[in-house]
């Protein structure tokens, strides 16, 4: 177990470096110049621009820039400075991240509760009316693109019924985020429901289920412990990879409901060629992704003792 964790942590290093390097190179190969953009249409004399470029370290070769960036990030937790307004990237992200985190957490809770709930109903009544209705519902949700769902919800609940505000306030309260969270988590909810349903319907016929019933265990225990525990592995795998995806996917939801989270920061830094901000953001998302996937793998052993780590 300890060896396994150590090996996984070591494997994370090249992936972490590779991903940050890839996004770094991608952002730096974008056309356009952030320093020129800073001066707008008027422009500035070449000496000023050169000085500014030197100050920001943009005159060095790209590999040096990457190494310096990584050094500052790893040693000083310094993610660089936004070129446009001189604010440290950590500060910009510090303002935006909590809001996205709040939104993602709410979406995750919705997908967990309703996704698994619908999945259990479908799985236990496989092939019957309720199952078919859940199947149709999830297929529909999967087919409707996130932004279309967002606009439908906005149109119906904000414009026609007036139950929610069309735009979320700058520092949103939890209840304001419910509608956006449904939009953000809807797709995952459908997948969670389907995975749970498939996995449960399959395991219902497993030998250990027959044994558990034959032993005379109460139905509650058979389903709650024996069936659930064995059916949750694919679901948990999906939920794990989804945490990162929810935060990355918040771009669309945030733009629909005017939420001031990382989505706006991402869109803005892409159009302004703010490489440092983007790389910082992606780095955080990659760390979240790597850590959750490790945790998920470790969770397997808890759910299924047959799984051992070499």
């Amino acid at each position, binding site marked *: 177990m300890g060896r396994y964790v150590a090996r996984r942590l070591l*494997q994370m290093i*090249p*992936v972490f470096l*590779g*991903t940050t390097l*890839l*996004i770094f190179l*991608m*952002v730096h*190969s*974008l*056309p356009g110049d952030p320093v020129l953009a800073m001066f707008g249409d008027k422009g500035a004399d070449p000496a000023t621009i050169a000085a500014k470029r030197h100050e920001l370290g943009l005159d060095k070769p790209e590999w040096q820039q990457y190494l310096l960036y990584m050094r500052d990030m790893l040693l000083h937790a310094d993610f660089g400075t936004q070129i446009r307004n001189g604010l440290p990237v950590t500060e910009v992200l510090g303002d935006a991240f909590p809001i996205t985190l709040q939104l993602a957490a709410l979406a995750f809770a919705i997908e967990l509760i309703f996704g698994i709930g619908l999945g259990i109903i479908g799985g236990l009544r496989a092939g019957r009316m309720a199952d078919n209705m859940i199947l149709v519902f999830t*297929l*529909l949700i*999967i*087919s*409707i*693109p*996130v*932004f*279309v769902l967002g*606009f*439908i919800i*906005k*149109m119906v609940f904000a*414009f026609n019924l007036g139950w929610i505000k069309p735009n979320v306030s700058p520092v949103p309260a939890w209840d304001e985020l419910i509608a956006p969270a449904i939009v953000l988590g809807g*797709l*995952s909810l459908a*997948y*969670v429901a*389907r*995975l749970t349903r*498939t*996995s449960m*319907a*399959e395991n219902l016929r497993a030998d250990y289920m027959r044994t558990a019933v034959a032993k005379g265990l109460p139905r509650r225990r058979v389903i709650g412990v024996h069936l659930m525990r064995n059916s949750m592995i*694919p679901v948990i*795998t*999906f939920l794990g*990879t*989804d945490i990162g*995806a*929810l*935060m*990355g*996917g918040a*771009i*669309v939801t945030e*733009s629909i409901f005017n939420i001031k989270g990382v989505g706006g920061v*991402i*869109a803005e830094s*892409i*159009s302004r060629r703010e490489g440092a901000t*983007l790389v910082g*953001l*992606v780095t955080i*998302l*990659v760390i979240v*992704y*790597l850590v959750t996937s490790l945790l998920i793998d470790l969770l397997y052993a808890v759910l299924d003792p047959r799984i051992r780590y070499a």
Partner: protein
Amino acid sequence: MPDVTKTAAAVEEAVATPSVDAPAPAAQQEKARSLWGDAWADLRRNPYFIVSSVLISVLLLISAWPTLFTSASPTVGDLVHHFLSKPELGSIGSPDWLGYDQQGRSVYARLIHGTRASIIVGVCVTAIVTVLGGIMGMISGYFGGKIDAVLSRVTDIFFGIPFLLGAMVVLQAFVERTVWVVVFALAFLGWTQITRVMRGSVITVKQADYVHAAKALGAGTTRILFRHILPNAMAPVIVVATIALGGYISAEATLSYLGLGLAAPTVSWGVDISAGVAQIRVAPHVLLWPSIMLSITVLAFIMLGEAVRNALDPKLR
């Protein structure tokens, strides 16, 4: 696009698919059918398969010959038909049918002509991703060891970048964003999913007896890979690819909505949806119809994938 990353679920489901140890070419016995023959017999009776393949055939027909369905131009507008002239539902097939957009262009004509962009993006990205990811996954899974370790880390690196975010950065690098640029951006980040599925599938298949038998008989690596491994490892890949195709179509629309996908002169559903957003309160039909078409198309491909999955994996029933 989140839609596509979400197909990770499909990956899990497909990977969970046990190796279907079908007897390879089984022409000797009269009754024995191959895995694919069985699946085909199954598919023909599946209503989901029938509905989705009819829908997809119609969509392909529309994208190949849009002029069969409407004679109105998607780009010429007449301001006499201001977008406030709402749809006239009685006149099916005429340019008036679904109303007009802000510039007096027929929403119906744009709907028909916009089909091509979505279908091209979906089909091309899926084709590239399947070939590229399939080869990577096959090499990784079959040879194992160091090759696998390196390829898997490369896959992880690309997988770690959030799909939508990565595609946005790639697209930003192009001034003129044609359909092919969008195809490139989506394929650049999309192949990892197929690689993972293929790798898992090949690892299960390569332990099968017929592979050992072929090796013992002295078959070469290429022959084993293409004659024995590939046909038996393809099933989960095809399922994931079909479902992902819908996801790519929706990804294209999402990027266009964000202003980073296809742009104005190109006629596409995504372009129309993003234009319709501004008038959502005055003229919701401009936004609604392309959204409905988009959702139906995605639904058709997802249903097809589901049907194929059920046919290939009888255990799920």
